């Protein structure tokens, strides 16, 4: 691999864009492709499919064998709410390889003392998300219980097609949310993308266990897709 290609992969990772590297296994020749610069042939279509699925692999096994490796952005987790559950969720998500951001405008909650070693922003989510937009490689978890704080980022996550969206609260709470979202032209079909009540049903009984159930649901959605 040429150093130049290594550097381009690192740059793509920095800017949260996807790239693919195609290697000719026999000759060792390598080419780096950006999603908007794919060749208009069968190989280009194959690279496109793999960029979408995130799966690297061999093509042309019988003839001129090529290895296509896709480098897609590392998954990100944005947590709305610097609450007790979030304190347990942050290290779990980091251990799973997620870049984690915690946002809460309530300065009493969003203190560095409660949230060391994580990107913490004591600001309104809608303001933060203007400069740091969500994307399809991002999971958004809203756990403040407060519609004033949770609603707008949840709606933004639906618009930006976050791969996982979860909201804390009972079915009753989610029912009220559905009514509010309908007033913003978000219908039941769109609303179905929100996991609510949040987390896998494992009988979680305290903040750490709820964090486990949320993290498990995020990983399941990441690896298996949304099966609901």
């Amino acid at each position, binding site marked *: 691999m040429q*150093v130049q290609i*290594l550097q381009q992969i690192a740059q793509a990772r920095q800017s949260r864009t996807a790239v693919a590297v195609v290697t000719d296994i026999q000759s060792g020749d390598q080419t780096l492709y950006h999603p908007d610069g794919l060749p208009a042939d069968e190989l280009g279509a194959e690279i496109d499919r793999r960029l979408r699925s995130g799966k690297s692999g061999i093509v042309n096994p019988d003839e001129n064998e090529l290895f296509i490796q896709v*480098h897609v952005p*590392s998954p990100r987790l944005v947590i709305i709410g610097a609450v007790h559950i979030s304190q347990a969720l942050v290290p779990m998500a980091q251990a*799973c390889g997620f870049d984690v951001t915690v946002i809460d405008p309530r300065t009493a909650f969003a203190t560095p003392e409660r949230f060391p070693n994580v990107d913490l922003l004591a600001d309104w989510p809608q303001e933060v998300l203007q400069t740091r937009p969500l994307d399809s490689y991002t999971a958004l978890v809203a756990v403040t219980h407060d519609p004033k704080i949770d609603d707008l980022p949840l709606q933004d996550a639906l618009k930006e097609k976050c*791969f996982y969206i979860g909201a804390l609260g009972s079915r009753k709470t989610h029912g009220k949310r559905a009514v509010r979202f309908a007033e913003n032209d978000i219908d039941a079909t769109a609303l179905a993308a929100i996991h609510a009540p949040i987390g896998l049903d494992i009988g979680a009984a305290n903040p750490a266990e709820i964090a486990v159930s949320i993290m498990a649901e995020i990983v399941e959605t990441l690896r298996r897709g949304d099966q609901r």
Partner: protein
Amino acid sequence: MADQLNDTLLIAEQWQAQGRALALATVIDTWGSAPRPVGSHLIIDSEGNFEGSVSGGCVEGAVVFEAVEAIETGKPKVLEFGVADETAWEVGLSCGGRIRIYVEPVTA
């Protein structure tokens, strides 16, 4: 989605910037219950230092040996490991899977 896999490439970039001669090993194909998915990386320097993984630790030793050689020759190669693969490397995968690994020098 990517995960920690990519971090190995970031380490590769750092090592390269330090002027170390490197080879990159990548899992390019798997059959059966392979321990690490396609696209997993191991980065190796000419002293045999390495980071990352291409198996659960079963074949890394052999890969490092081949990688150091690839740094010297400047030529890429394909390695294949399987269960009870005695003829080639005398190391195999205890999980019963089979993997192919592409080893290439990092060039300027």
